[in-house]
């Protein structure tokens, strides 16, 4: 018995000591290898001769040593690897953020091109000013509400200063409501990782804001537009974005009640586009149609935009920027499934392509002409729809999603104009609202369960899987997201803009609208040297009727 006990003790001792000895031996070997590499590294004299082949640049000489006397250690190398990973992800996220920022130019061209020349300056100015309004509001409070509780992103170094989500407990489950850290990016949020996520999220928010200007173009009072945009950037957008992306309750549907991986919206079909599109619908309802848009019998008149070339170039700029929108939403190019960026980018391209085909074939087949503005809207519809599922679906799925969106946008434009009698000069409600909601829904249908972003999504182990691949509960989570977009975001925007209408007035005067908003609102014509063609007779008659 004593012998057995001694034997066990001996084994235990050996098991304790042996791995340490092996590790020590490995460390010694690695240290020796590092010293060897240092010895072989190019010296100053080699570097002075130049390095045309690039074989001497980027060696162990470039790894900073904590103790120069000891030389480069394993710890130094490990630290440098960590720095490299975060550096790659910072660079990726920032550059994709810059691409999204450039989308503002695309929106400006699309919206202005689809408006009449007498409102060109005003429409461009709304698209220009929305950037400042949104950025300011987001810096002051919006970012804190959205991301103030969103710690834990390993791609960007953890974002530890953002960890104060305000919760509410219902029936024993804790649900996130809004973040609290990050107002003015002050205090602990003065942090390198937080700055990166702020820039990236800010340009997304600004995209949502600029959608509204399209639906309310040619009649929105500039002062009210500014105030409405500030409030949307401060409250409306950040609240929903928190619920979906900032550790809020929609993202917890998986962990709390077992609905798939919670509400999933990879790059913002819902968070960005549906929020913008539904707010656009709310504002368009309150502000009413342009003079001359509808006849007494309810039929509508086409009010042709002044520059279709600007519209199509703008669409291409937007499609280019979308490569920031979707692949950038991995928030990195290194670690945690980030290598899927190629797949995300290809899905984005494909959906834009099939969306264009969907719209152009619909118009050509049923209306007789391959309508240019609807083709542009088809491209955007496909891109909007693939924004949420781009990280979770395969190329076939993305092509189907885009094609459906291309047809859907044509049907939606007709429905909103002819049934709802809502005037949307650029089709923003259909492109971003309708197709945004379709994008959210399509995650619950087409997600193929092959994506793997660090082994879990929204804290639930596994990959996002839709109904067609066996998980019906994911579809329910997406439906709850859609219901929240309509039930909360639309209603909140409607009430907010209704109050603004009472206090400030949403709409310019009839005289200003007839003259065009450029001179009365902006003090300058968009194209001062142009000779304007007179309005069509039907528009002149409508303007005369209002003037009387």
């Amino acid at each position, binding site marked *: 018995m004593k012998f057995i006990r001694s034997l066990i003790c001996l084994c235990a001792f050996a098991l304790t000591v042996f791995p340490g000895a092996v590790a020590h031996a490995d460390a010694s070997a690695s240290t020796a290898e590092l010293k060897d590499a240092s010895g072989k590294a190019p010296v100053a004299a080699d570097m002075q001769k130049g390095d045309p082949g690039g074989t001497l640049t980027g060696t162990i000489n470039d790894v900073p040593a904590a103790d120069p006397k000891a030389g480069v250690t394993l710890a130094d190398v490990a630290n440098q690897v960590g720095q490299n990973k975060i550096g790659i992800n910072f660079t990726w996220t920032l550059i994709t953020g810059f691409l999204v920022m450039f989308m503002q130019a695309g929106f400006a061209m699309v919206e202005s091109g689809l408006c009449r020349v007498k409102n060109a300056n005003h429409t461009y100015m709304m698209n220009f000013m929305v950037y400042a309004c949104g950025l*300011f*509001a987001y810096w*002051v*409070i919006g970012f804190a509400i959205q991301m103030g509780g969103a710690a834990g992103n390993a791609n960007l170094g953890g974002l530890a200063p953002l960890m104060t989500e305000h919760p509410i407990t*219902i*029936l024993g489950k804790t649900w996130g409501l809004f973040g609290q850290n990050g*107002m*003015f990016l002050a205090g602990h949020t003065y942090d390198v990782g937080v700055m990166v996520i702020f820039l990236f999220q800010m340009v997304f928010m600004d995209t949502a804001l600029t959608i509204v200007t399209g639906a309310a173009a040619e*009649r929105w*009072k*500039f*002062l009210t537009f500014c*105030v409405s945009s*500030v409030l949307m950037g401060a409250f409306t957008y950040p609240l929903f974005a928190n619920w979906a992306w900032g550790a809020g309750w929609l993202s917890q*549907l998986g962990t709390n*009640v077992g*609905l798939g991986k919670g509400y999933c919206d990879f790059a913002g079909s819902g968070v960005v586009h549906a929020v913008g599109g539904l707010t656009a*619908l709310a504002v368009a*309802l*309150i*502000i*009413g*149609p342009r*003079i001359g*848009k*509808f006849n007494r019998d*309810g039929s509508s008149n086409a009010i042709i935009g002044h520059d279709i070339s600007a519209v199509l170039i703008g669409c291409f700029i937007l499609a280019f920027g979308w490569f920031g929108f979707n692949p950038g939403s991995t928030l990195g190019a290194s670690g945690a499934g980030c290598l899927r960026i190629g797949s995300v980018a290809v899905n984005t391209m494909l959906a834009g392509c099939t969306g264009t085909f969907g719209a152009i074939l619909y118009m050509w087949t049923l209306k007789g002409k391959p309508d240019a503005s609807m083709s542009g809207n088809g491209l955007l519809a496909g891109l909007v729809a693939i924004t949420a599922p781009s990280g979770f679906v395969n190329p076939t799925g993305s092509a189907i999603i885009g094609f459906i969106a291309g047809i859907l946008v044509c049907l939606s434009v007709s429905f909103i104009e002819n049934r*709802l*009698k*809502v005037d949307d000069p650029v089709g923003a409600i259909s492109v971003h609202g309708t197709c945004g909601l379709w994008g959210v829904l399509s995650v619950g249908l087409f997600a193929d369960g092959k994506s793997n972003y660090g082994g879990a999504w929204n804290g639930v182990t596994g990959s996002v899987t839709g109904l067609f691949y066996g998980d*019906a*509960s994911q*579809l*329910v989570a997406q*439906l*709850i997201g*859609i*219901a*929240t977009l*309509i*039930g*909360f975001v*639309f209603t909140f925007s*409607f*009430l907010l803009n*209704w109050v603004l209408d009472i*206090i*400030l*007035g949403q*709409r*310019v*005067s*009839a*005289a*200003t609208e007839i003259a065009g*908003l450029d001179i*009365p*609102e*902006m003090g300058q014509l968009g194209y001062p040297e142009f000779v304007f063609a007179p309005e069509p007779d039907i528009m002149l008659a*409508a303007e005369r009727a209002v003037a009387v």
Partner: protein
Amino acid sequence: MAANKGQGRSLSLFLVGLTAACAGLGVLSGGMGTIVLLAGIVLLAGSLWNAFKLKPLEGAVALKSQPAVTKLVGAIVVVAGWAVVLLGLHLTPSVGGRMIAAIVGLAISLVGVLYILPAACNKNAIWKA
């Protein structure tokens, strides 16, 4: 009268008020937080009041009054649909039950968005006159 100096002053005051209110909110636990927050709210109210006074000077708009009660009913129906969806989460643990609740709730919300609110907003539309 369209854009004017008064509107510019209102917007300036609004931005200053919002900044002050948020700064106060950010340091609410500190001694000065409440005072700064209140000052910000006063500035915000002042800016809105200034813009409200300017509103009648801007001329008639091509939009007649929209029935407030119907608009409110529409908004309530939209929210009610959302409430049905959220209630469904707690009423049943089954995926099928929750899906039915979500679809029913969405249908209710869509009645508000696609029927009641457009009807209210277009009731006195100028193009009908």
